[in-house]
């Protein structure tokens, strides 16, 4: 089988064009923060960000850097650190188009893309303002039962899925453990970019224990090694959230200058010091 070549973070994110429909996972499923920083550094613009199904620091930073035109999400929050400052500011000054969703609708729309079906029905949502504001969603009658209205969602097929994982092998197989949503993202997306903590020897698929919890190489376009690649977010059992760094972000993100300074500090090695 053809081995996948490892790239640098810069080359990895170079394949995310301006205007891409970019899918990113929720905070606990492996957020590629190092790659996000590289993406900001290259000055990406007009992203249509799909949060699977929510986001936090990553979405807020991309919005603060002026990289996002549209965000589809079920929530954006920095949890106990507070509401997302750049997200909220962008909504206030109307520089961001928000597509409010609900978690299972984002999953279902990705599952539709995974199955190559143009739409998928889903229960719930009828009578909500979430549905009322989604011109791209419809209510139809269940074709099998008269008088049973149900929402249908068009498939979400991301141009790019981007996430961080524990390890990959040299064939390009990525170990995902229980984080099946990154598998769903990769199945649904045209292109999948992965950062990993490390490369392991041997073939992950051949390991009877871990083999079932692998994203196979066929879905993976490129891999870059990023040690502590989810920092300052937590990553699995590898490292905890860097509370100090996020508190500092919350303070600085109140202004464009602060965001720029935060990014500059990051380039300057804040991570190394963490």
């Amino acid at each position: 089988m053809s081995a996948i070549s490892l790239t640098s973070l810069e080359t990895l994110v170079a394949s995310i064009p301006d205007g891409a429909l970019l899918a990113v996972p929720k905070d606990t499923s492996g957020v590629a923060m190092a790659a996000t920083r590289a993406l900001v550094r290259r000055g990406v613009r007009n992203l249509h960000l799909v949060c699977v199904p929510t986001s936090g620091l990553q979405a807020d930073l991309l919005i603060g850097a002026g990289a996002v035109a549209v965000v589809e999400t079920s929530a954006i929050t920095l949890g106990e650190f507070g509401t997302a400052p750049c997200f909220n500011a962008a909504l206030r000054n109307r520089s961001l188009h928000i597509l409010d969703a609900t978690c299972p609708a984002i999953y279902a729309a990705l599952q539709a893309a995974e199955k190559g079906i143009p739409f998928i029905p889903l229960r719930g949502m009828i009578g909500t303002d979430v549905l009322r504001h989604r011109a791209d969603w419809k209510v139809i009658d269940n074709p099998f039962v008269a008088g049973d209205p149900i929402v249908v969602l068009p498939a979400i097929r991301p141009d790019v899925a981007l996430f961080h994982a524990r390890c990959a092998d040299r064939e390009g197989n990525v170990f995902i453990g229980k984080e099946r949503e990154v598998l769903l993202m990769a199945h649904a997306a045209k292109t999948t970019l992965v950062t990993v903590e490390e490369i392991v020897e041997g073939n992950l698929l051949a390991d009877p224990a871990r083999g079932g919890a692998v994203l196979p190489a066929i879905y993976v376009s490129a891999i870059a090694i990023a040690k502590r690649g989810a920092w300052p977010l937590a990553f699995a059992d590898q490292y905890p959230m860097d509370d100090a760094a996020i508190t500092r972000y919350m303070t600085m993100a109140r202004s464009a200058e602060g965001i720029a300074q935060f990014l500059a500090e990051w380039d300057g090695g804040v991570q190394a010091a963490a």
Partner: protein
Amino acid sequence: MSEASGTELLVAVIARLLQGCAHVAVGASSPIPGAGALLARLQSGGAMRVTVLGSQKNNFFTSGGVELFDLAAQGRIDAFFLGGGQIDGQANINLVGTGDYPDTPVRWPGSFGSAYLYFLIPRVILFREEHTRRVMVPKVDFISAPGVSDAGVHRPGGPHALLTGLGLFSFDRARCRFRLDSVHPGHSVEEIRDNTGFEFDCPAHVPSTPAPDASTLAAIRNRIRGDIAETYPQFAARLAAA
């Protein structure tokens, strides 16, 4: 043993509201519902299953984040908790923001799974400690999830109770109205009226929310505090200090 703190009272009330459930799920950032569910499990002698999102130990999911929602649709979750930046008298909840969407002077994180789970889980408990007219409004500005649905809409689930820092309400789905069931010790019906922006049913005599008995209180302070610390260490520490 000292008297139950406000938090301990809420934990005990939640455990009571969950009695008889086979499987209770608790969303992220929900320490008090999480502690209440773990207490209910303890009281059930282990018959109840509890899933705490964000926990390693109390979360069995192996199919990604979608599993919670699929479980709900399969009818395998009996109870869940929702909150809201605004809650109104029809049990509509708003997790998005105030004002004329999308121009929201105050924006909250978003609807999460509420627009779905509220429809499918039989016993949804609305939990919000803050009980003010800012939260308990006549009509929510944005319906993340409605309290009731038109006939014909598939809706096995919905609101069961509203628990706040002041009292406990039950919800009558047929009449689409809350009823004040009890007032927490140290508070009054008048205080609840003053701080509630919507109409609700109120019997002539509203009992006081019963405080947890000694063994329940001991369980909260020992077993439950330890159990919840895995997911919410800071909350567990506060629980100890209380």
